[in-house]
């Protein structure tokens, strides 16, 4: 069976959900092998095996994490050459897409990013993407021997499928070029305790209508265990960090439930949330275009509607 490489996304050995999703998808195409870069591989190995990794390739030189994108590209390129995999699956986040891009050029392989589905096709790996602000669904085939696919989080339900997870050390000498770009300072963001935006099952976002007060949005989000997002207008006004922006120039999310509070629904915003399963909006303006998308909408002031909803949710949850 053809090998399928999965680049592991982790924080100090703790596997992110997106990686388990990639392993689940990889099993449809062939035999998954995880590629783990960083220390604490032992902790990670257990989880990776649980989700179906037959092999776990480990590169544990801490140097690799000090530099950006290029080391991962070189390690993956060496593995592609060695194993001739059917596909390389990478999380479709900012760094993942760049690794995919560089790897594609280096190995002369076709690349697809932001895939929401991946299947084994007759003429090569087939992918599905949502394009033009989610208004079209596009199916593509990768025609090269190896397909490089960056897959969006929340594209598949995770299924465990225990496998051996046999560890194999990777020996690659990083080039000087790979060390040209260095992270010289990293200021960690204050932990909010909320789920990560692109991985969350529920997202509650605020926009211009908050007037800068995200309190009701955050409290409603917390009652639902949701992540908090923001429209570009809110971010441009300096009310919420750019890393929480949902939209074309921010994150594209596709949760089970998306709640837009005080957001009009410009194309820029719709591009980031239109593929959500269920959409709810609260807006004072009944003409707001966001209401064209909703499953349920409340024409009203978010400062009265959200706190009331928060209380009702808390009561219902006991």
């Amino acid at each position, binding site marked *: 069976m053809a090998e399928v490489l999965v680049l592991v996304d982790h924080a100090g050995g703790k596997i992110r959900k997106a990686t388990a999703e990639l392993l689940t998808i990889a099993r449809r195409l062939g035999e998954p092998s995880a590629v783990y870069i960083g220390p604490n591989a032992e902790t990670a190995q257990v989880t990776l095996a649980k989700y179906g990794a037959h092999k776990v390739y480990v590169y544990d030189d801490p140097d690799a994490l000090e530099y950006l994108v*290029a080391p991962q590209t070189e390690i993956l390129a060496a593995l592609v050459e060695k194993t001739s995999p059917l596909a390389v699956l990478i999380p479709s986040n*900012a760094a993942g897409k760049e690794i995919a*891009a560089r790897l594609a050029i280096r190995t002369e392989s*076709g690349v697809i990013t932001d895939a929401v589905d991946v299947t084994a096709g007759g003429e090569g790996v087939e992918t599905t993407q949502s*394009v033009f602000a989610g208004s079209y669904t596009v199916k593509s085939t*990768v*025609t090269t021997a190896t397909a490089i696919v960056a897959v969006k989080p929340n594209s598949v339900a995770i299924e465990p499928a225990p496998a051996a997870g046999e560890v194999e050390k990777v020996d690659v000498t990083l080039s000087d070029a790979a060390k*040209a*770009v260095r992270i010289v300072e990293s200021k960690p*963001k204050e932990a909010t305790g909320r789920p990560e935006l692109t991985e969350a099952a529920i997202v509650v976002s605020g926009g211009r209508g908050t007037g800068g007060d995200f309190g009701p949005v955050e409290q409603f989000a917390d009652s639902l265990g949701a992540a908090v997002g923001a429209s570009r207008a809110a971010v441009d006004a300096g009310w919420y960090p750019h890393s929480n922006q949902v939209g074309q120039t921010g994150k594209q999310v596709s949760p089970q439930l998306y709640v837009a509070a005080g957001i009009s629904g410009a194309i820029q915003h719709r591009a980031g949330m239109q593929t959500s399963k269920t959409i709810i909006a609260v807006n004072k303006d009944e003409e707001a275009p966001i209401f064209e998308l909703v499953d349920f909408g409340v024409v009203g002031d978010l400062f009265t509607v959200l706190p009331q909803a928060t209380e009702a949710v808390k009561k219902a949850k006991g």
Partner: protein
Amino acid sequence: MNIVVCVKYVPDAQSDRSFNEADNTTDREGVEGLLSELDEYAVEEALKIAEAGEGEVTVVTVGPEQAVNAVKKALQMGAHKAVHVSDEAIHGSDAAATSLILAEAVKKAAGDGTPDLVITGMSSTDGVMGVVPAMLAERLGLPQVTYASELTLHGDKVSIRRDGDAASETIESTLPALVSVTDQINEPRYPSFKGIMAAKKKPVETWSLADLGVDAGRVGLDAAWTKVTSFAKRPPREQGQLVTDEGDGGTKLAEFLSAQKFL
């Protein structure tokens, strides 16, 4: 400082974007096009650097005839010269082929060398893959520092600030380098009347694949490493229930959540 900015001519996101039925490529003729909004930030940043010291800004685009409008807009903003790579064989090129053409154009624009700095937007507003900057860096053998929300030059180094999910990072690279910028980095200027008049006298070179020494067989639809096999318009979402808050809007919202088993 010699700066090359790569820009793209894209269908207006406000218009009804679609595909060509014949070959599943993006329809670039049936809709209004313009300089990709995200590329304006790249042009602005290059101009700021050039204005702060000695520097020349060259804008490069690859695309059909009307794509020249993208570089013209950049010239109106203040760029010094422009290059438009146009060739019928380019139609249908994927990101990999586009990066090949851009790489050769960047080298030629820099007088068959490498410019000190290549600046791009974070992604286009049509394809939105965001892979061309990384591919271009790989082709040019340049370090890449992407998603810059702040850019500082000191000596032979460039450093940027990037706001990631978990941390705000300062990233440093040696020059020459490729930098992609986000929409947080600056406020792009509007072309002034003077700028518009001056742009008319600025040189726009048009290059073919032959001018760049790129084999036409390596680009275009047939050479693409990926192909779009089908496209379908998503059915428009049907508007669900809309209630006007009469003091119980929040309660009704919670009832909906409960009925949908979110609670």
